[in-house]
């Protein structure tokens, strides 16, 4: 009987010790679903090369990724936007200094239905369409017809970038349809002749027609050289400067091989 109690006691102590600190060789990553595909792709390759390191990845959104860094429940927090000043002050109040690492680029492309004759819009026109000032396609050189404005939910990272870069922080009209995902925008624009929407570059397909912005074609090349105006960085945040396996993983993503994997996963590499 005594022996059993002792074994149980030792087991309990071991359990407490094990849960109390992150096991060496494990990297926990949480956050944006936009950054998820590139994280999975690079993590698989990294684990194949370093079998002693275990990387666990989950989604949950940009906000949750940054929150996880502040709480210490993850080593890396993914975000499809830069950290907000509110989040920085929350982190600082807990003694955490989040460090951003830009790991990839993404362009957000305005799209219209295949039947639409309009092939280019200016930033000002896009803004007026989303403000509800331009209501008909004939005002921007298309065939007459009501413009159906399709937007993303106000909490999505893509919406945040659109709002900052195109809307200049003004409000999208309330009558805009909101769709919960990039795929949903493709679906809705593809089925609605008068629709306009916006999606990440990786989601373009033959169902929808991309629109040039200020005369610049939305391509990977134009995003990397900075001429396409609606582009954003995809970030990984760490708690302070990364150390050990976390540092090794981030430098792997930023290496030539890592960036090739980023491209394979459908995002735009930094170089």
């Amino acid at each position, binding site marked *: 009987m005594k022996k059993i109690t002792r074994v149980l006691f030792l087991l309990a102590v071991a359990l407490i010790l094990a849960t109390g600190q992150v096991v060496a060789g494990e990297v926990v990553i949480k956050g944006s679903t936009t950054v998820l595909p590139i994280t999975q792709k690079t993590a698989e390759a990294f684990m194949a090369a370093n079998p002693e390191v275990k990387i666990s990845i989950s989604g949950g959104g940009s906000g949750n990724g940054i929150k996880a860094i502040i709480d210490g429940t993850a080593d890396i927090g993914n975000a499809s936007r830069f950290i907000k000043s509110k989040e920085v002050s929350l982190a600082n109040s807990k003694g955490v200094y989040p460090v951003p690492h830009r790991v990839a680029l993404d362009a957000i492309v305005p799209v219209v239905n295949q039947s639409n004759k309009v092939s280019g819009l200016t930033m000002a026109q896009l803004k007026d369409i989303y403000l509800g000032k331009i209501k008909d396609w004939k005002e921007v050189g298309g065939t007459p017809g009501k413009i159906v404005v399709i937007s993303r939910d106000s*909490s999505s990272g893509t919406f945040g970038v659109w709002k900052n870069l195109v809307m200049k922080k003004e409000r999208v009209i309330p009558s805009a*349809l909101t769709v919960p995902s990039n795929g949903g925008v493709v679906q809705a624009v593809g089925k609605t002749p008068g629709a306009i929407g916006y999606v990440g570059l990786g989601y373009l397909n033959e169902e929808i027609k991309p629109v040039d912005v200020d005369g610049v074609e939305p391509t990977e090349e134009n995003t990397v050289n900075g001429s396409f105006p609606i582009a954003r960085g995809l970030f990984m945040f760490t708690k302070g400067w990364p150390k050990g396996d976390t540092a090794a993983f981030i430098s792997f993503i930023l290496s030539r091989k890592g960036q090739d994997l980023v491209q394979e996963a459908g995002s735009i590499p930094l170089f």
Partner: protein
Amino acid sequence: MRRQDIDKGVQSVFLLVALFSITALSLIMVFLFLEGIPIFETVSVKDFVFGKYWYPTDEPADFGIMPLILGSVYVTLLAGMIAIPLGIMTAIYLAEIASPRVAEIVKPIVELLASMPSVVIGFFGMVVVAPFLQKLFDIPVGLNMFNASLMLAFMAVPTICSISEDAIFSVPTALKEASFALGATHNETIIRVIIPASLSGICTAVILGLSRAIGETMVVLMAAGGAAMLPTSIFDPVRPLPASIAAEMAEAPFGSEHYHALFAIGVVLFVFTFGFNLIADYISHKFRQVGEASL
């Protein structure tokens, strides 16, 4: 062991099980209210419920859920206008008019409709019904209030039909026979005797059907269009309460105003469905037919 002891034991086990589900339910309610109430430190209850603009992530944010409430109410009413006549008439047909063989085939099919996953119905609305409505009515967009109402009506019909059918079926035969004996035709008997006698059951059915429609999330998320605007026509896109919670909860920072506002929407939704259930309970008690003499 004595039989009385076994009896007692069984009783207490059942009591425990019942207590467990009640406790779980009340804890969820407490949690809902605890997480929802902090939003009223930033907006007043009046501005929250009657505010016309829902911009939860702006700086400064607007937390007005009137467009969402109206979206929910209109979609549910419209769904009711479609589903109530269909459901009740199907129930009357099945219980009174159809031959037993037909009823045996049709009834399970109607009930099968109830077991259709809501995401399938939502997807159907988004991919099939939306383009169809768009062409049929020549409207700019097919994801709108009317589409969502049609899909919700689909879901409410089986509930309304099967509960009403039970109510109509349980009308005492003596009542029916008395009516026939007085020379009434079958139609007259249905309208003057059977429907009044089963009214409480039918009302309960309607209310339960509608409360299912107002709480339904997936269908309205996929088919209603999701625009937080005050609707002016049935072809306007709307954003009902459950759709807002489902679409925004994942990205709302934990503990933020937006997060609390979404829980407060949950409270509003809870008040709606709770009200529906209270009314259903009241009607079924108040108008219950006791015996055959109370008609």
